[in-house]
């Protein structure tokens, strides 16, 4: 596990559901085919209404043009991030787009599990609402050992909630690696 994650913030509102993260019409592409899977990155957050995409100003597309990689690698969300369907395509799409971590006020259970068990990205919770304090494009640095995030653009620093019982899965990489490490799985 990386000790520090640095990247640009992409800020979103409350209740970003899985249809906004990856609209259902795109769920048909293969997740293992090297070319097809890039489409997930390309369409990441394409369901977010444009005025709410990249707060506070909005109207900032997460993905530019034909790219599948985003300029932004840390997502700042509000409450109930990832609510809706069980589609693992959601954290997968964010990973393909280059997202390393999400910091939200709270998560929907299945999205949270998927992030951790699939080893796609790190789902942090803040102690306070951060999507009205951090702006899209701010340069952030998450310190995983200290459970904190520093806004390099403004100098502000915020503590994050420790990852709790899932930290051992995150440290192992994903659920399968965790199971191998603990002897649940052989080989």
């Amino acid at each position, binding site marked *: 596990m990386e000790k520090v994650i640095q990247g640009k913030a992409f800020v979103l509102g409350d*209740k970003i*559901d899985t*249809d*906004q993260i990856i*609209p*259902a*019409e795109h*769920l*048909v*592409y*293969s*997740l*293992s085919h090297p070319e*097809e899977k890039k489409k997930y990155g390309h369409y990441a957050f394409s*369901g977010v*209404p444009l005025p709410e995409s990249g707060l506070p100003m909005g109207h900032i597309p997460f993905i530019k043009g034909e790219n599948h990689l985003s300029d932004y690698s840390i997502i700042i969300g509000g*409450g*109930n991030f990832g*609510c*809706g*369907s*069980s*589609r*693992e*395509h959601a*954290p997968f799409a964010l990973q393909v787009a280059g997202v390393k971590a999400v910091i939200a006020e*709270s*998560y*929907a*259970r*299945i999205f949270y*599990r*998927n992030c951790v*068990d*699939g*080893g796609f990205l790190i789902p942090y919770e803040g102690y306070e609402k951060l999507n009205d304090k951090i702006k899209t494009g701010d340069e952030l640095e998450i310190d995983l050992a200290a459970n904190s995030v520093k806004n390099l653009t403004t100098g502000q620093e915020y503590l994050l909630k420790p990852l709790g*019982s899932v930290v051992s899965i995150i440290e192992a990489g*994903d*659920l*399968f690696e965790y*199971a191998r490490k603990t002897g*649940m*799985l052989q*080989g």
Partner: protein
Amino acid sequence: MGMTITEKILAKASGKSKVVPGETIWLSVDVLMTHDVCGPPTIDIWKREFGSSAKIWDKDKLVIFPDHYIFTANSHAIANVAKLREFASEYDLPNYYGPGTDRYKGVCHMALAEEGYNVPGTVLFGTDSHTCTSGAFGMFSTGVGNSDAAFILGTGKIWEKVPESMLFWFDGEIPPYLTAKDMILQIIGDITTDGATYRAMEFAGPGVMSLPMSERMTLTNMAIEAGGMNGIIEADELTEAYVKARTSKPYEIFRSDADAVYQSRYTYDLSKMEPMVAKPHSPDNKDTVRNVQGTRLTKCYIGSCTGGKLEDFIFAARILFGQQVQVPTFIVPASTWVDQQLDVETVNGVTLRDIFKKAGCQIGESSCAACLGGPSDTFGRAQDEEVIISTTNRNFPGRMGSKKSAVYLASALTVAASAVKGVITDPRDVM
């Protein structure tokens, strides 16, 4: 200190005599269900992680219902179903229900009940968030992603954090203008879309136990819309009769102890409740139908695992009998069995199918259809700036297709009443 029904089932499945909320436990899974959207990536992960000699932990416990993108020309969607078909034949799976064959069943959550996979006291995981539906049978059921499903596929095990339970108690008897959909929209509006996150939602009381199984399934189906891990209703004679008619699997009935601990309790009096809607764009954006009465509509939709069950169509037929719909109205039976029942079940001596046809409705084939938008050729899909009233369970932006569309969620009674008037209408005005 007693235990709730959810805690008792989880204790049994983890081989413990007692579990407490917050505790992380490993469960032995009784059934794993998957479908055409999440099945193929689950299989890929399973093969990647367990290698060329990967073994399915128990073929009898794996159930595959392709149901999401079935009646479409989309080549990717067709490839996904083909992949499942090949997987089923390669591993000689007994519980594969292939589209285009007479085994095809329609929407997975309905099919799990109809085919006898819902068994009181057991633990069922599925790669679909509405897997919580099966909780109507006094069992633990919840949705997981592909990695968790692949882990179960290889090991039969999964971790879970024991949830706190919330109790939703209904007094009284349900009046003819109310349905389970109104009950659950009221609850979700009251506690909001994250009011039950990581919790069990237990529905109980005489008002719940007087409901038929399909209406109970509407309650548990939408537990996820409040963020719930699972929805659950204790099994009774009705449940036992339903289950025994479909499977000989042994079952065990668990009940919450009188001194079980709940995170919170809510009590509702059915005689005082109103027909409800969830306004665009969130299932917790509740209002009474009365307050939004007169809203112009471009489409009505009756379908999905929430609102495309036989009782929903009986509700709708009672209102649509002898009437004409004023806006395009789409009927999608949740399962092929429900579809067949449209020719069997009657209202005033006329079959449901004839009532719907004469009223001018369009009837589609059993599948998820426009409940989740789907490929562009999906039956009933939301176009442009449509305003739709629907019996489905989600109205997030773009959920039914077009991002510009606006969706109201309501009961089949309210949707049928609105279809007859072309504007949102309280069912009491046309009954």
